[in-house]
């Protein structure tokens, strides 16, 4: 290939875009400046996306330049280093550069003026060591994406290992007006940039390496070409036409590759990695010079500055110091923006520090950025639509945002909006479109979170209800059994056991009760903690930045609470050493049982975790960390399994000693209930998942995870259920011989079988219905087959057949009257079930009707009060009326069938 070809790349184009005045020349008049050391450096702990770093230093510590002062806190986090030598004077809340204008924890460093470097340890053999080690090194050097988002670079690079990379794109477009920091960086550090790109390319091994740069930086382009030619590099330079927002990651990818990043996915999913030029230079400095990320290039510009220019500035330098350096005129300054005029955010005060992502300080005069004109009505001129780089319909989204029609807004792909501001820029009616979208997006997010929460609450409530129902049924069954048993057995040795234990010291039950309560509290606390930890992990994985901090806080709180409880519990036995030994024989069984359960749960949990890790390992085979984790888990698992076997041995001996049947059957029942609850949960989550898939909600992954876990739980329980069943069957067989009333057991079994049968039939029906639904939706055969339902149908049918066979067998064996009673019981149960269903359904429909009516009333009222929105309200009314009619029709049908059923009885 001729060398000329190597450096040109195909350029595609993207929809929309705007050409705001560039205003880039002001800041390029002066050479790169290096401001003096400020009086103090303010180093926020959260300069990146993800969790804030953890400080390593204490107030009063002396640090050298480049020394680590904070380390990462979790997976999605980064390191922080001292930008100069000096003393840590405080670790406190300070105003930070954030759109919210809030304060955050910062390390305050007072420079000593000597600027002494710590010992630098470059990674000279980066080509020979494993890539994971290089990534870890980058993390320790505090490298994050310097283009704006601040995504930890090692995490981004790790994400790029998912798929083989076709393109490694270096973003040098710098499309925002005013900003020239990247331009200056390329001019000043051309060779470092190219070397940094080469290091990164070594790490990711992409097919093409392309530098995307806008054609308004000829000097930088020439400098790059010279260096690349000299090095005979394969890195291409793609000069793209100047158009905002060509520097947006998605837009630059489209410009350079013609590909689009699928909605809701990352560039890595289509084999593309983007890095900012600043990041590449930082990588070079870290690896070949050993310098951590402690300074950056920042543009100081705006009419309120006498000497607009680019500066290489230490992180943590207060903006006020830079404004002084560039000789700002406070009288002229009306708006202080960090970032560019299109996507930057205003600063309340100049006391905030420069962070790793600050690429520009725009000190604008009133004339330069006048306050926004009053908003006028949208005339749907469509200029926003022509400007939108995401091909959205901004004017429709505005309409939906104003009328809070969230569904429609989502249907019009509101979440694909990148908030570039092009629509607001061109809007002739001065409508702050982006602000409307931000508001709607956050409202939708809030609503989603609320639904997830309410779903969980509902699940919990239903599980509780099911458990209570089951317990009530159990009690009722026991009562019946007692009624039957009392006349036949006058002297029951088994029952005398608790009677003996009863007349013991009065204090003992109280303390045991209390300790039990504490234990329960601890268990609840632990499960809460586990849940929180899971949520935290999820949040970290999905980068819900705002959630992470609050979750972290909750987790620590929970941990504290548990520790407190455990302490209390530990004190408990010492307080009650007088607990009678008489009780221990009986009491010990319970803890052992509990412990056994706990151990089993541990086993199951560890197994799940192990599986997950193994899966991860398959995806990323050379991750040493993962391997270690897996090994640890495997040992844990073994230990847990040992405990289980040990404990079960003890329980067996215990149970053999006292109440073999009762315990077994109790356990069995409890397991069954658990299994039923777990199954219900699985079903619930499945439903949620389906719905989520339909509306394409972003929580799908989380729900899937939930589903998996719920299924796992259900499976575990079923397995557990199968084992004790065998055990209890033995016990039952024994008791049958001894017991006077064996029929009872058989009747129970028959009942169970019947219920199973009913469940199996319902399962078949459901599967069939789903298949039909799929067919109605016009999915073709292949898709239906691909879905789980046919297989489920088959399974259910098989199960049904097996059950029917089973039923016919005992039916002949068991004597006729027994069968009859069993049958009637089962029948009444089966009958009662649909009836109850029907009743609840009717209730539900009635509620729906009432709701719809209420809504219509409300809408009518609204219509009266706000005639401007007449047509949208009318539409809503119509929709509601339709819903009402549907609900009424359904209700009628249901009532009809209910009366039918009652008549049939």
């Amino acid at each position, binding site marked *: 290939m001729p060398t000329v070809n190597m450096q040109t790349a195909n350029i595609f184009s*993207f929809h929309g875009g705007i050409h*705001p005045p560039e205003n880039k020349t002001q800041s390029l008049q002066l050479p790169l400046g290096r401001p003096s050391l400020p009086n103090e450096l303010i180093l926020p702990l959260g300069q990146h996306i993800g969790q804030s770093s953890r400080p390593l230093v204490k107030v009063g510590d002396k640090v050298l330049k480049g020394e680590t002062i904070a380390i990462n806190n979790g997976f999605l986090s980064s390191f922080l280093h001292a930008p100069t030598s000096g003393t840590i004077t405080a670790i406190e809340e300070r105003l930070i550069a954030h759109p919210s204008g809030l304060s955050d924890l910062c390390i305050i460093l007072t420079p000593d003026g000597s600027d002494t470097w710590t010992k630098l340890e470059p990674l000279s053999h980066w080509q020979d060591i494993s890539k994971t080690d290089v990534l870890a090194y980058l993390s320790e050097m505090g490298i994050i994406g310097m283009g704006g988002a601040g995504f930890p670079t090692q995490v981004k690079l790790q994400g790029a290992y998912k798929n083989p990379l076709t393109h490694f794109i270096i973003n040098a477009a710098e499309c925002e*007006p005013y900003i020239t920091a990247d331009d200056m960086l390329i001019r000043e550090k051309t060779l470092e940039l190219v070397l940094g790109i080469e290091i990164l390319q070594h790490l990711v091994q992409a097919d093409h390496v392309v530098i995307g740069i806008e054609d308004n930086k000829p000097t930088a382009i020439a400098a790059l070409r010279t260096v690349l030619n000299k090095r005979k590099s394969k890195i291409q330079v793609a000069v793209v036409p100047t158009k905002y927002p060509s520097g947006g990651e*998605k837009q630059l990818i*489209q410009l350079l590759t013609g590909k689009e*990043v*699928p*909605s809701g996915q990352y560039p890595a999913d289509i084999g593309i990695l983007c890095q900012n030029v600043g990041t590449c230079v930082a990588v070079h400095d870290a690896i070949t010079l050993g310098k951590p990320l402690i300074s950056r290039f920042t543009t100081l510009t705006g009419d309120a500055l006498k000497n607009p220019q680019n500066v290489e500035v230490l992180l943590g330098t207060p903006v006020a110091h830079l404004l002084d350096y560039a000789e700002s005129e406070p009288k002229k*300054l009306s*708006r202080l923006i960090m*970032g560019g*005029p*299109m*996507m*930057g*955010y*205003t*600063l*309340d*005060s*100049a006391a905030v520090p420069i962070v790793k992502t600050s690429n520009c300080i725009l000190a*604008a005069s009133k004339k330069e*950025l006048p*306050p*926004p*004109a009053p908003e*006028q*009505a949208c*005339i*749907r*001129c*469509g*200029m926003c*639509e022509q400007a939108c780089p*995401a*091909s*959205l319909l901004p004017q*429709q989204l505005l309409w939906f945002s104003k009328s809070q029609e969230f*569904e429609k807004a989502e249907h*019009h*792909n509101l979440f*694909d909006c990148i*908030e570039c*501001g092009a629509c*607001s*820029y*061109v809007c*002739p009616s*001065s409508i702050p479109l*982006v*602000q409307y979208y*931000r508001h709607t997006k956050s409202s939708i997010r809030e609503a989603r979170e609320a639904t997830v929460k309410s779903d969980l609450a509902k699940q919990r409530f239903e599980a509780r209800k099911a458990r209570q129902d089951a317990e009530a049924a159990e009690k009722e069954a026991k009562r019946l059994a007692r009624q039957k048993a009392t006349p036949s057995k006058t002297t029951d040795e088994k029952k005398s056991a608790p009677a003996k234990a009863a007349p013991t010291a009065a204090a003992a039950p109280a303390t045991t009760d209390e300790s039990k309560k504490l234990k329960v509290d601890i268990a609840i606390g632990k499960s809460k903690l586990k849940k929180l930890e899971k949520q935290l992990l999820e949040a970290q994985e999905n980068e819900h930045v705002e959630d992470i901090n609050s979750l972290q806080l909750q987790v620590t709180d929970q941990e504290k609470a548990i520790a407190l409880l455990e302490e209390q519990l530990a004190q408990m036995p010492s307080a009650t050493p007088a607990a009678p030994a008489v009780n221990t024989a009986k009491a010990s069984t319970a803890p052992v049982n509990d412990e056994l359960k706990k151990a089993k749960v541990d086993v199951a949990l560890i197994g799940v975790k192990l599986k997950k890790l193994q899966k991860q390992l398959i995806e990323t085979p050379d991750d040493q960390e993962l391997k270690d984790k897996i090994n640890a888990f495997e040992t844990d698992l073994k230990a847990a399994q040992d405990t289980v076997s040990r404990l079960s041995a003890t329980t067996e001996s215990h149970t053999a000693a006292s109440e073999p049947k009762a315990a077994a059957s109790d356990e069995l029942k409890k397991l069954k209930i658990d299994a039923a609850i777990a199954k219900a949960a699985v079903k619930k989550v499945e439903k949620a998942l389906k*719905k989520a898939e*339909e509306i394409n909600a972003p929580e799908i992954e989380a729900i899937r995870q939930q589903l998996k876990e719920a299924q796992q739980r259900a499976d575990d329980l079923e397995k557990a259920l199968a084992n004790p069943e065998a055990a209890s069957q033995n016990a039952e067989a024994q008791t049958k011989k001894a017991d006077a009333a064996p029929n009872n057991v058989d009747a129970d079994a028959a009942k169970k079988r019947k219920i199973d049968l009913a469940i199996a039939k319902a399962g078949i029906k459901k599967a069939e219905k789903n298949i039909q639904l799929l067919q109605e939706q016009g999915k073709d055969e292949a898709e239906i087959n691909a879905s789980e339902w046919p297989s489920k149908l088959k399974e259910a049918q098989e199960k049904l057949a097996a059950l029917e066979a089973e039923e016919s067998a005992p039916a002949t064996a068991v004597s006729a009257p027994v069968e009859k009673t069993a049958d009637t019981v089962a029948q009444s149960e089966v009958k009662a079930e649909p009836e109850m269903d029907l009743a609840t359904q009717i209730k539900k429909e009635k509620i729906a009707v009432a709701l719809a009516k209420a809504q219509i009333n409300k809408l009518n009222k609204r219509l009266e009060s706000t*005639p*401007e929105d*007449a*047509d949208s309200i009318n539409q809503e009314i119509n*929709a509601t009326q*339709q819903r009402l009619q549907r609900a009424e029709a359904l209700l009628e049908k249901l009532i009809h069938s209910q009366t039918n059923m009652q008549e049939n009885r």
Partner: protein
Amino acid sequence: MALLRITSPHTQRAGRRTSWVMQMVILATIPGIVVQTWLFGWGTFINLMIACITALLSEAAILAIRRRPVGFFLKDYSALLTAVLLGVALPPVVPWWVTVTAVAFAIIFAKQLYGGLGNNPFNPAMVGYAIVLVSFPVPMSQWLGVHSMVSAGETLSFMQSLQAIFHQLPVIDSYTMATPLDGFKHKDLLDSQAAFSSIAALQGPSLNSWLWVNLAYLVGGLALIWLRIITWHTPVALLGALLIMSGAFHLFDPSNTATPFFHLTTGAAMFGAFFIATDPVSSCTSNRGKLIYGAGIGILIYIIRSWGGYPDGVAFGVLLMNFAAPLIDYYTQPRTYGHKKAKTGLKVGEDN
């Protein structure tokens, strides 16, 4: 130092406000107004004045009743634009009360009662036009002829126009004649060739006068496209559909139909395509939607001209497609970045 706190973006395109858009559209009608005045006398100009005054008064009155800032909304020029579009669409010597009725109805009922600018589902100017067209058919069909064709042999003077509009002008009949579309509509049993050779309205000077009017509006419309105030989609689709319809039927039945050229250069073809159908508020939003919308109007114009009860069909075509615009919008969303295909329709009432 009180710093302004505001979220991004912080800058706006200078100068291009809504009032600027409206002003540009008004300015773009000037070539058409000049040609119309030149051909038909001062009537158009007087109509415009009446229309503008009526529009401003009714807009101000309703805004005052609705307790909205009057000055702020009057300065957006949207009422004036409606008045101008109606003023040039009405016949030059239509009595003043017809103009007043049309404009007042357009502003009060078609625009303000729906919530003012940006909320009207129908094109206000065309609602006003349709109201007077169906209510006062006689004055609405009284078009002046080109001076070389009418019996008076000259255009109306300024005073005569005033008299015709505010009082009555007994000699008005010697100045009026049928428009080409009207003439062709009432050719009755004649075939096209006979009609074009015998009917006065279909003679060269008459046809040419309308050709000039249409060319003038074409120029204004192209200016709007050049200014990026409108996109090419609606006019091109409208004119294309009209061309295809008239071309197809002319090929099929040349003896009873007019040529595509006739259809594109008479009546309000260009005015409708560039100034009426492109009203953003009541038309479709997406580019694909605009194509369908424009084509629908073009087809309806041909249908009404050929088989309907009125000589021209721009007003009814536009109003009918206004009805369809929201539906078309739902089915013509553009494909968003990162999506395989465009979403269509809207699932209403689905519980989730």
